[in-house]
């Protein structure tokens, strides 16, 4: 086994999956918000909600295209870089992938056409139906992917056929595979994370408009809807996280031990580290602040029972402790921050002072990278914490590689990916920035505002801003 092929393939997979996962959570989260916005439009007939839905649809479309383009990479990569893994899991994953293609992808991309291009081609009700189908499709794709990934974490409903290098998993019970011990908890946690991200994304742009005094009516309404969603979801996430961590304690003790840097099992209740610097070599946590017995309580619901430590796990089966510990703890603290921030926002909204509190709005503007980070860190915890296994307890990552691929080929494709993804990212930021600068189309209500003065109004506003954008282009008014 060539170590460099392994390292390079892992780097490439991490690079491409993390880049890809910038986009799906926004598609899922924003998709849900679009359904709410368009439902408000249908219910009230208020053109402000129509303008709002149209604006966020444009952002959704760009994001969705990025998700599709980078998602095909993932489907290819299982075969190109992890052929042995593909042979091993193909029989089990097959049904999940087939279901994803047929139920999710066709649904999303078919109705996306109507959502984006169909405003004046179909009735509002049919359009709303399409929006719901796109949001549902985005949700479905997360369902099947998380099911497949959960099977790698907690395999169920299968038996092993063949021996040694020829061994592979074959499905025995489809529903046991779908509802593998961890799948539903993980799915809920993933989807809530996506809704938090979508809501923070909307709040960031809306708060920016409020601060700049642009599109005020649009921005305040968007912000309010997103804030409520963000608060509910941020409160729900720790509960779902707790349920999931209990499952990890039960099914993947090595991962939990790494997440919490539990090196020795001991006979005392296990403390929970709020902070700390784990040192795997010396098997201790430096500069740690711990709450006695809390981990035992959280993991088992029993504050006396010691948590299984890494001393119970053979050294060759240890996951990397530091990465797992840091990513997990950072994610948790980010989650705490989301709860505090959204509750503060809700309180100010209730008091009616939210939109005057400029510093708080700036926090919302700048907070948008944090839910992205939290989503990524959660997956890092899940995937790095599963190492050295690709299928937990069954197939090692180092055995899962393609045999026909050399280090040079992988290095070449990594370089290509870095170039292309850097370009894509730059262009994505540029396009997003131009959409944001352009803003929603102003709602023109004939008796009060004429189209003429409305246009001058916008032009005046445009001239007033500038500088704060991410790129240097000025007026990027779209054609037609």
């Amino acid at each position, binding site marked *: 086994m060539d170590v460099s092929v392994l390292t390079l393939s892992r780097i490439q997979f991490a690079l491409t999956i993390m880049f890809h996962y910038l986009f799906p959570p926004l598609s899922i989260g924003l998709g849900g918000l679009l359904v709410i916005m368009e439902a408000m439009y249908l219910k009230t007939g208020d053109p402000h909600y129509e303008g709002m839905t149209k604006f966020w649809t444009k952002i959704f479309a760009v994001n969705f295209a990025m998700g599709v383009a980078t998602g*095909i990479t993932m489907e290819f990569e299982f075969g190109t870089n992890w052929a042995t893994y593909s042979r091993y899991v193909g029989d089990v994953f097959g049904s999940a992938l087939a279901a994803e293609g047929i*139920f999710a992808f066709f649904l999303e991309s078919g109705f996306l056409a109507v959502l984006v291009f169909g405003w004046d081609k179909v009735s509002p009700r049919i359009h709303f139906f399409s929006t719901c189908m796109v949001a549902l499709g985005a949700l479905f794709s997360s369902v099947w992917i998380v099911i497949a990934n959960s099977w790698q974490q907690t395999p169920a409903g299968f038996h092993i056929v063949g021996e040694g290098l020829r061994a592979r998993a074959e499905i025995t019970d489809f529903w046991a595979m779908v509802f593998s011990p961890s799948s539903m908890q993980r799915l809920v946690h993933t989807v809530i994370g996506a809704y938090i991200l979508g809501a923070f994304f909307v709040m960031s742009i809306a708060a920016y408009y409020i601060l700049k005094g642009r599109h005020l009516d649009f921005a305040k309404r968007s912000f309010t809807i997103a804030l409520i969603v963000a608060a509910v979801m941020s409160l729900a996430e720790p509960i779902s996280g707790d349920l999931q961590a209990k499952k990890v304690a039960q099914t993947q003790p090595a991962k939990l031990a790494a997440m919490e840097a539990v090196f020795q099992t001991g006979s005392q209740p296990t403390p929970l580290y709020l902070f700390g610097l784990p040192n795997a070599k010396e098997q201790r946590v430096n500069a740690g602040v711990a709450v006695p017995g809390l981990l035992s309580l959280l993991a088992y619901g029993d504050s006396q029972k010691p948590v299984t430590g890494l001393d119970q796990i053979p050294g060759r089966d240890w996951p990397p402790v530091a990465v797992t510990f840091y990513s997990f703890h950072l994610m948790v603290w980010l989650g705490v921050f989301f709860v505090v921030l959204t509750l503060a926002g809700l309180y100010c909204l209730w008091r009616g002072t939210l939109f005057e509190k400029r510093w708080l709005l700036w926090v919302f503007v700048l907070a948008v990278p944090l839910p992205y980070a939290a989503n990524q860190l959660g997956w890092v915890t899940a995937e790095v914490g599963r190492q050295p296994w690709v299928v937990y307890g069954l197939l090692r990552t180092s055995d899962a590689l393609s045999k026909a691929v050399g280090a040079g080929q992988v290095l070449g494709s990594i370089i290509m990916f870095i170039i292309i993804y850097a370009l894509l990212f730059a262009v994505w930021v540029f396009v997003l920035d131009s959409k944001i600068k352009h803003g929603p189309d102003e709602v023109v209500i004939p008796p009060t505002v004429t189209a003429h003065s409305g246009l001058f109004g916008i032009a005046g506003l445009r001239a007033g801003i500038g500088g704060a954008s991410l790129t240097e282009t000025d007026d990027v008014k779209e054609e037609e």
Partner: protein
Amino acid sequence: MDLNIFWFILLGVLLAGYAILDGFDLGVGILHLVVKRDQERRVLMNSIGPLWDGNEVWLVTFGGALFAAFPQAYATAFSGFYTAFMMLLFALIFRAVSMEFRSKDNSAAWRSFWDVSFCAASALATFLFGVAVGNAMSGMPIGADMEFQGTFISLLHPYALLVGLFAVATFAMHGSIYLYLKTEGALQQRIHGWMWQTFGIFLVLYILTTIFTLVAMPLATHNFREHPWVWIVVVLNVLAIANIPRAIFLGRPGYAFASSCATIAALTFLFGVALFPHLIYSSLNPDWSLTVYNAASSHKTLAIMAAIAALGMPFVLAYTSVVYWVFRGKVQLGKFSY
């Protein structure tokens, strides 16, 4: 009919669906640089604007179904042809983002960059599909362990290159007929000329490829000797091809497009016949080939997936038709266009 054969056929249906639907998208991309004016290029892009994404899903689903039904073949092909698949991937990514990003800025340099990228990516992806078909027909060096033993360069033999060019010509013709249906006025008049030109190139390459296959690809013709009834499809294929110029001449582009779809479907079918029961034919030792039996998932998985497909495909076909119906008619550049 056992489930292995059922899934072989279903993969063929997905492949044909992809080739017909994304075929005209890729064809439009290949022809994109022929028009020079910005407004005309926008018409070309927007003729496929709302549809290409859904069409590409046929490929994604084909890939997923291959992984699911025949994981050994998926693993062998994707790892063995690593460089080719990476190139295909980059082409598909560029094709997608070129359309998405071209209209986002007005500068001429920005737009011509994405125009060239759109055309090159479409042509490269099509060419690679053709090369893949050519290699499947000729067989590849597959060892007893089901692993590919050749190199990327060894995939680029003359027959594969010819099929690659044939694929480009086929999609260009298919795309030009599609464009003729979707455009009007002076642009449509010019596209009328393209239909004849691309058909001419297609016909020459069709004849060359057929002769090369009959003379030098004994594997590909084996099933035709065993099962003479498949010659009916060959005849239908020839009739469909012959109907393309006839329909263009008679001014019935709809029939020409239907014939072009039928041609692609027939070619995919013949490709399947030539291959069956192999998925990847080993040129080192026929016994090492990957077939629909030794490369397949278990009977249970094939059965579950057949149930999923039976449940899902009617919906897919229904709303795909609805979307095509919504976007029927000529391209109109509007507020929501690229």
